[in-house]
């Protein structure tokens, strides 16, 4: 007990104290460092006198964006703030007191939530850190976006050499405004080399108590807690917890790893005085008792401590933590190896396909996604960064970054929003030396492949030896053992049948003797065999029984997911079989399936047809013509498009492709059907949702057609390439996306540059593609100038392309005024313009 470190006492609120001294609501507190230095210094001094061992300099919002309108530089304001705090330390006569540089949120959201890039956020924080180099430590606080917090932590670690604390702000539901929970925060930052992690602001100590307990189980770092003085009264803005109550509740938190305490909004020197008294009293009592004194330690202390000490770590996205404490499915499908369609998507930058693969795996039950984009001829670093950015904008499972190139891994680790799993390091010296330091720096987990310069050892013992080497090298650079997942390598049973048992044995050895987790690429085992699912599922079960924690597999394989679910049930991991029951609540035994499915499909189809019958009365003549000319199958596809029967389009097309030429389906059925719907839309009989529903049916049909053409080796036919962008400054891009879907429906290739697109990026894409038509979208009046500038830049670059513009606030007159060639009133009109420009 004697070496138990003293709990560090922070200060209380600055903002509410300044408001009490006359700062108006919405005023800039940091300017007071220059205009009212004595007031600021006096507040610091009172905190030190009340017991604070650290005071936060008045720099919370002193970033270049928030300070732009004050006319003062970041250096000036932070310099003055730190000087004021130092002056307070001198005045209080306590030279031991420390001054912290306080870094709060930037005030703008990072992409994809907002328009600030991760790199820009890093620069802004780095500037603050450099301006605060005279501070004794750095506190990053009140963060609600994990990504922003990560930018700040990296900026602090890379630009200063002082202790760093991070505290985030959680709402009563246990999540931040952007959806991060305690576990995701703990996992992301526990291995990033900071000195304390915790919670501040938003709530009072009573509301934060359960979150502190949760955090105690999720990190071994010192915990920092700085609550508000309860909750504010919306009318009077006063807080409802007294200094005595505050101290009493804070005392209840102290057993749970809390090592740094203070107060946030609404707290004053009185709160800190009481807090100091309570903390020192608790410490004195603690010195007298043993670790298992039931009187002193709270009832749940033992249980929570056990969870904390025994649960292995995990990985996290910003919004989801995945612990390695039980078997988890890693989806293997984002990988071009052996997948022609995926290679094409990478070559064409077809993000929709890649994201579609991700979403379908998550829906099938993948808890982690492997991301491998290595392909000759593409810039792997650039592609990896792009794919990860897109993935983390739409799926919430954590990612496994799959590459053996250090430069690819570093770029990905840096911009990853959370704590990823790196796949992989191996026993080769070159790999160990270049990859382990990256894993350590970014606080990631890592897969260790049991191969080295000598290749893959044939016996379990040889692979185990490599695993041992990887573990010891990782620990030598400071990576905790629980962050390691050893891959004992699955060989193919059809080629090396005896090797399967060696792999299983190696997994068991790693599990029993090294106590790390184990990864295996499961599907490799069945390569070259019929009924691969059967072999895969059986091998998976065997490997799990031997200690496999993270199978890399195809979650869309029902047999394998079933084996994993059943294993979890049988091993009492899936408590009360809840997940299993949920997965199979609608289960129909396979023998009965065909009849059941047919019945269900028939009913659904009939219901849909009845429901939307009113949607397409004008299509009848065309329907008859198509039936006569191309047959009933074609007519029913036409019908499916016109009526928006999304479930049927792809299926009918698949059948049709057996008897009909691809281009005949496109030109003879799909486009006439779209025209029918388009005409209904133009005359006001049909509405946008119906148009888009029909477009979705065509999308389904198109993907079947493309698949068919690919399989038969035919070139996919495009009617031409169009570049689309939502202009710089505008982040609303649903309108542009609707136009894109419709253009693709008509057979155009769309190069979608996304939203908030730099002017130069539009010019470059237009140049590179040589497109005759560029489409620009803007929602707000404030971004119309950016549309004008983009058009001007296209003209200046000497490009002959036409420009079509669209968006809620545009008018034909304004479109002409800013130099556009066409005004796209709506998605349908834009397609007509494209057909005119391309002459198709």
């Amino acid at each position, binding site marked *: 007990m004697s070496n138990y470190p003293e709990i560090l006492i922070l200060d209380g609120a600055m903002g509410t104290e300044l408001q009490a001294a006359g700062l108006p609501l*919405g005023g800039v507190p940091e300017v007071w460092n220059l205009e009212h230095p004595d007031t600021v210094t006096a507040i610091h001094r009172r905190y030190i006198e009340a017991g604070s061992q650290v005071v936060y300099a008045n720099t919370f919002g002193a970033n270049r964006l928030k300070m732009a309108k004050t006319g003062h530089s970041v250096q000036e304001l932070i310099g003055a703030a730190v000087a004021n705090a130092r002056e307070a330390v001198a005045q209080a006569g306590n030279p031991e007191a420390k001054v912290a540089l306080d870094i709060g949120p930037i005030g703008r959201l990072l992409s994809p939530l*907002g328009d600030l890039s991760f790199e820009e956020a890093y620069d802004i924080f780095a500037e603050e850190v450099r301006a605060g180099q005279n501070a004794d430590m750095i506190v990053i606080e009140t963060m609600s976006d994990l990504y922003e917090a990560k930018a700040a932590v990296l900026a602090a670690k890379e630009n200063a050499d002082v202790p760093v604390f991070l505290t985030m*702000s959680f709402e009563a539901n246990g999540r931040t405004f952007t959806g991060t929970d305690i576990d995701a925060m703990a996992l992301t930052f526990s291995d990033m080399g900071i000195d304390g992690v915790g919670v501040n602001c938003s709530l009072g100590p009573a509301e934060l108590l359960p979150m502190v307990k949760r955090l105690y189980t999720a990190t071994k770092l010192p915990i920092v807690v700085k609550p508000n003085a309860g909750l504010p009264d919306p009318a009077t803005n006063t807080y409802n917890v007294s200094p005595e109550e505050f101290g009493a509740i804070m005392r209840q938190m102290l057993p749970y790893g809390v090592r740094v305490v203070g107060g946030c909004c609404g707290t004053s020197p009185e709160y800190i005085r009481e807090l100091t008294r309570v903390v020192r009293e608790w410490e004195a009592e603690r010195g007298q008792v043993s670790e298992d004194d039931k009187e002193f330690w709270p009832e749940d202390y033992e249980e929570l401590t056990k969870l904390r000490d025994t649960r292995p770590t995990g990985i996290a996205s910003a919004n989801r933590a995945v612990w390695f404490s039980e078997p988890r499915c890693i989806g293997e499908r984002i990988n071009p190896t052996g997948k022609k369609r995926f290679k094409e998507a990478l070559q064409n930058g077809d993000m929709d396909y890649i994201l579609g693969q991700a*979403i379908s795996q998550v829906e099938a039950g993948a808890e982690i996604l492997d991301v491998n984009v290595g392909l000759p001829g593409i810039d792997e670093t650039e592609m990896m960064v792009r794919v990860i950015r897109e993935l983390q904008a739409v799926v919430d499972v954590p990612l496994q970054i799959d590459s053996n190139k250090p430069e690819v891994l570093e770029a990905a680790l840096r911009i990853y929003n959370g704590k990823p799993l790196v796949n992989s390091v191996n026993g080769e010296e070159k790999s160990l030396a270049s990859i382990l330091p990256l894993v350590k720096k970014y606080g990631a987990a890592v897969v260790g492949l049991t191969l080295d310069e000598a290749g893959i050892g044939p016996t379990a013992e040889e692979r185990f030896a490599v695993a041992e080497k990887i573990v010891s090298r990782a620990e030598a650079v400071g990576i905790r053992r629980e962050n390691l997942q050893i891959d004992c390598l699955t060989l193919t049973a059809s080629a090396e049948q005896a090797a399967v048992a060696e792999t299983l044995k190696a997994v068991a050895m790693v599990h029993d003797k090294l106590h790390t987790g184990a990864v295996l690429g499961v599907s490799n085992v069945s390569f070259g065999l019929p009924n691969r699912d059967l072999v895969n599922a059986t091998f998976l079960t065997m490997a799990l029984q031997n200690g496999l924690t993270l199978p890399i597999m195809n979650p869309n394989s029902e047999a394998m997911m079933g084996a994993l679910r059943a294993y979890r049930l049988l091993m009492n991991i899936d408590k009360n079989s809840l997940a299993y029951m949920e997965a199979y609540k609608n289960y129909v035994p396979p023998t009965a399936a065909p009849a059941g499915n047919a019945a269900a499909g028939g009913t659904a189809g009939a219901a849909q047809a009845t429901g939307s019958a009113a*949607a397409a009365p004008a299509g009848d003549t065309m329907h008859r013509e198509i039936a006569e000319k191309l047959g009933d199958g074609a007519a029913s596809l036409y019908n499916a498009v016109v009526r928006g029967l999304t479930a049927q389009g792809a299926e009918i097309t698949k059948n049709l492709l057996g008897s009909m030429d691809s281009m005949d389906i496109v030109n003879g059925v799909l486009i006439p059907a779209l025209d029918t719907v388009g005409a209904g839309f133009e005359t006001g009989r049909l509405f946008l949702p*119906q148009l*888009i529903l029909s477009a979705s049916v065509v999308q389904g049909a198109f993907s079947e057609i493309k698949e068919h053409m690919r399989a038969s080796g035919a070139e996919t036919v495009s009617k031409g390439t169009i570049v689309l962008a939502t202009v710089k*400054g505008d982040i609303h891009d649903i309108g542009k996306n609707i136009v894109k879907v419709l253009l693709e429906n008509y057979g155009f290739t769309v190069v979608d540059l996304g939203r908030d697109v730099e002017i130069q990026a539009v010019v470059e894409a237009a140049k590179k593609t040589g497109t005759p038509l560029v489409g620009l979208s803007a929602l*707000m009046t404030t971004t119309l100038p950016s549309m004008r500038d983009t058009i001007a830049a296209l003209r200046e670059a000497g490009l002959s392309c036409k420009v079509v513009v669209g968006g809620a606030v545009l008018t034909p007159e304004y479109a002409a005024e800013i130099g556009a060639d066409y005004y796209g009133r709506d998605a349908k009109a834009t397609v007509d313009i494209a057909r005119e420009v391309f002459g198709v």
Partner: protein
Amino acid sequence: MVELKPIRMEEAARYLGYGGQMPDETILSLMHECEEPLREACRPAYSVGIFDMECGGEAEVRLAECALTLTGKDIVKHLTGCTKVALMAATLGSGVDTLLRRLQRTEMAKALLTDAMAGAAIEQICDDVQSELQGKMPLYRQTWRFSPGYGDLPLALQEDLLSAVEAGKRIGLATTQGHMLTPMKSVTAIIGLQDMTKELRKVTAEDGDAISAPVGACAAGACAGCAYHESCLSRQDKSENETIDAETSDGGNA
């Protein structure tokens, strides 16, 4: 915190271009399919601040103990006759943006419908916030919601408005460089508060210009004595009667 009531589909349909019509069965059932995921993604929150108005001038309104100054002739007109101003910021939260991003990648029709429904939802939240405010300040009549970017009120005031109600800290609302709100399904508004006790004393003909206040935003039972009784666009005899009935029965219970 505030709870999201069932989403008004007719309002969402209006955003989708249906005018006064309701969508057909297919679309409507798709909309109902979209409602649950949308509700799960919603984390509605708001922040409101009440400030005394200080006279500014022809094109400026200053607020007491607040760093925000409202500029332009339109806001001056909007706040004519008001003594206080409520500043409001409300959001559905960033989960809705994420949901919409995902749907745009996979199911465009649902993305379109969900987008419109989210638009209806944030307006409902604003209506509920105004009703709650009415309950707290029954003697004040509220104007409709005026937002930065309307008329000649600069959109660039967005940041100062958010700071004045501490919207960043309290509800996680921010702006982009171009002053757009993020999360995207969010609203900021300026609501004028007219002191009814003053108005009841100045029933004059020239005050009888038609005004438009949202239905239900007036003080309970205030219609009969209101200076705008004859001309108010929102006055509904039915709701007035109901209010009176309610008061009577309350009296009976007491």
